[in-house]
């Protein structure tokens, strides 16, 4: 098995290997950088960044899950969908910005270990998928929201987008939490 795998690796294009090597070296350069060391070795700053990252879940995921639940038909059914989404949108964006900045700092504190962790990789893929789901929702069914804004019948596509979003972000949270354990070090 191992030899088959290494043979496969060997046969992979030289370009692929260069890319892999250069990504690894970028991570190593990042890991040796002053901000990375500073965050990693700080006594108070690291836990503060981590706490910010966790508690901002309430702002970011709290807002998105509120409208996801509305789309799924599980909450705020008397409120037009467009109002739930539009009024909470700036708060979700604010939460997302804080999430990305604090998450970026956490990543920067140990990029090699993070990038090596399967949970981190799955988390990043899930964030991209959640982003695609949100983009498609806004570009399609949410464009003609006036037609179904106040009806009891939420279009299947909108309902699906809400449920998908809830599931994808839940997986993001789970992977994010699991990543902190040293199971793959």
């Amino acid at each position, binding site marked *: 098995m191992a030899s088959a795998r290494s043979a496969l690796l060997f046969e992979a294009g030289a370009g692929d290997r260069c890319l892999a090597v250069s990504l690894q070296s970028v991570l190593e350069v990042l890991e040796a950088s002053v901000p990375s060391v500073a965050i990693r070795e700080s006594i108070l700053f690291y836990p503060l960044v981590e706490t910010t990252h966790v508690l901002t879940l309430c702002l970011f995921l709290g807002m998105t899950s509120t409208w996801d639940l509305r789309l799924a038909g599980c909450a705020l059914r008397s409120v*037009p969908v467009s109002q739930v989404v539009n009024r909470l949108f700036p708060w979700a964006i604010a939460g997302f910005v804080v999430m990305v900045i604090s998450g970026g700092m956490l990543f920067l504190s140990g990029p090699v270990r993070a990038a090596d962790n399967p949970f981190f990789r799955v988390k990043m893929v899930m964030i991209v998928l959640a982003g695609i789901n949100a983009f498609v929702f806004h570009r399609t069914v949410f464009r003609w929201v006036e037609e179904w804004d106040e009806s009891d019948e939420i279009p299947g596509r909108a309902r699906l987008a809400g449920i998908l979003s809830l599931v994808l972000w839940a997986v993001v949270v789970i992977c994010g939490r*699991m990543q902190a354990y040293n199971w793959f070090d």
Partner: protein
Amino acid sequence: MILPVDLLPLFEWFEDTSVGVVIRESLWLFPVIECFHLLALAMIGGNILVVDLRLLGLGMRGQTAAALARSMHPWLVGGLAAMVATGVPMFLSEAIKCYYSPPFWYKMGFFVLALAFTFTVRKRFTAKALADRIPIQGKLIALVSLGLWFTVGFSGRWIAFY
């Protein structure tokens, strides 16, 4: 920690409960329970934020605070139930560590305060908040609520550090 009674024997008993032992001896049980604790955190945090933002005249201004609080209430109660259902087993698995952890005691103290405030003062106010404009005491209630719950969450995270 200055307490009127010595609670250490009680915490030792917590630590020895079968639930505590099973979680402590498992590699993945604690992390899995913690994940659901976090998901429930996002839910109740968002829930409280939506209503408190409305009390501050922000966010979902098209609805009255009373309507929002009423429709969010089942999710708040459900989220809190999930929080407790996941928090208690995690506590049982490390009760003695919690006993010596200042953030744990802060968290419990503020949790009791936040619960009491949410289901008395805040609930009574939001039930009658049918007007578009919220009087100043409503804004104060929102700020106190946000402050109390933030402290619960913040000190909760710090149980892992101290």
